[in-house]
């Protein structure tokens, strides 16, 4: 990849990338970089889910976690040079869309009841 990038100028870089020759294997070092970004996104998603009280943002955070998994899948797929990872991401997107549709419908329902998006308002059931 970097070898490719080294050949191309910075300007035409992105387009060249998209139409470039078939990729070569990813180095483990580069893989580490992507994995770190993925793990950090995952952690950020979790932290956001734990701290934000707005139902919509909470669900956005799970989307961020899905996104982190997607990035890991693509990076691993590139490392192994097979397409299972990318296929997986397609399905992850499918599920994310399905979950989002239902979650947002639920949020609308809850908002109608309480006129608020605060998750902590829903705390009547407890031990």
């Amino acid at each position: 990849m970097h070898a490719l990038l080294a050949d191309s100028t910075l300007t035409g870089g992105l387009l060249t990338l998209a139409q470039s020759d078939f990729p070569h294997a990813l180095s483990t070092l580069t893989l580490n970089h992507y994995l770190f970004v993925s793990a950090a996104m995952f952690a950020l998603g979790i932290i956001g889910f734990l701290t934000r009280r707005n139902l919509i943002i909470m669900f956005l955070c799970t989307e961020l976690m899905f996104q982190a998994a997607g990035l890991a899948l693509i990076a691993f797929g590139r490392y192994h040079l097979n397409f299972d990872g990318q296929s997986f991401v397609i399905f992850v997107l499918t599920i994310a869309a399905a979950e989002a549709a239902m979650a947002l419908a639920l949020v609308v329902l809850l908002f109608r009841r309480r006129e608020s998006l605060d998750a902590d308002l829903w705390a009547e059931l407890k031990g």
Partner: protein
Amino acid sequence: MTDKLALVWPEIWLFVTTCVVMVVGLSPDLRVRKLCGWISALGLVVAIGAAVPVAHAGGLFPSITPYAKGMIGVVGLMLLPLLAGTVDRDLDAAIESGKATFSALRSNRAEFYAFFLFSLTGLMLTASADDLIWLFLALELTSLPTYIMVTISTRGTRSQEAGVKYFFLGALGAAIFLYGFALIYGATGTTDLAEIAAAFRAQSEAGGLNTIGVAGLAVALIGLCFKIAAVPMHMYAADVYQGAASGVSAMLAFVPKTAGFLAIIMLCGAVGWTHGATHDSLPAPIYILLWVIAAATMFTGNLLAIRQSSVKRILAYSSVAHSGYMLVGVIAGPGSGHGTFWDNGIAAVLFYLLTYGVTNVGTFAVLASIQKPNGEEADDIADIRGLHGTRPHLAGAMLLCVLSLLGMPPLLGFFGKVGLFTSAISAGEIPLVIVLGLNSAIAAFYYLRIARAAYLEPADEHVETRAGPIPQRVFAAVLSASAVVLLLTVAQMLMERSVTASGYHAPHAGMADTPHEALDLTRADD
């Protein structure tokens, strides 16, 4: 493609039934809409029939599908009368009496059946999973409908609160096990479970599992703990069970749990039970992980159950505890392969899932059959006091089911628990067996409390309960209770089936190489 298609006939039938139910449910004629339950039952029966001849030739657990799908179909059939009429009774009554007109946009019942069937479809798909992607989608298809069923199961805000907790925490859990799946793919380079198993085998033969794989398995297993309500992902259980209608709670105790256990068994199968010093256990980190989770789950579930005053919460925590028991079976693994039920942990888990599912229907059905004056289902333990005097058959059903959950000897639950005990003993898991025994004893506290309330305590004067409006639920309760007793006669057969179903194809490293052969062609003249 076609061989896999043959594998999923039950699911296809269920999905077709779902579509039929959705369409039929839009009829303005109440009598036609009432057919939905019967159509669902018919679809389930056909699915069970279609599951019987299914035989799987590949994968880690080649013959798990007929048993699992049969079990799912049977318990689904028992859940059906319990779920029937959970929503929209008022609307139907209003339409019948002319106070309201039918509007397809407001009909709920058919969708409710449809969600139930969707969920069972997902559950059956989980059983036929041989691929991580497939597994992920099947698990989601199992869970997503249950989120909605919980939310709309009653009119009150409690079920909506249960719904939001269940949905959001469920999404968190899903994201977590998805990340685990991604890492497993990363560690092995494939999503096919058999190839994953082969790759892990090759790694462990070459000097130990890759830590990415370990991390992936660990994260995925913890994420799946949400589905089975195991520590630390059990938090939602009590609130959700309490907030949802009893029928839906019964479903939650079986459907996601079964899906979770099937997935856990498959993931554990991917690393195999042939590691460790004596080559008869899971790889050390996974083993310790499951061990800690199992022990913590048992204790947490049982101890927290003692403090509750709501029967539904007690049953929720008991459901948590039962997950802990079953994890013991997972840890014990398929055993030495002698083919007997008593040293095969996986068979024990599969059998236990069936007994638990059957029994569980009864306990929740009893609760669903009793109404408080304000129209809510019975929940608090005070509501079932003196049940023996007023509704003895319900009290009897409750007693039988509770005793079976407790593992009283002549009842069905006993054999499930004995299977777990003996398989764990033969796997040498003595400390875990002690924890299991200890917890079975603790469980007696709250189970007997329920039985005592129903049988020995007089009804509270100020707590008035009356018969619920839906007779099918009583039927479900009695059905479940009699199953607890009558299935004993075929218990031996079921155990043998579960042994067959748990047949495990231990992976070998050579399997990993198959994709390369085709590629050799392309290096035409190297």
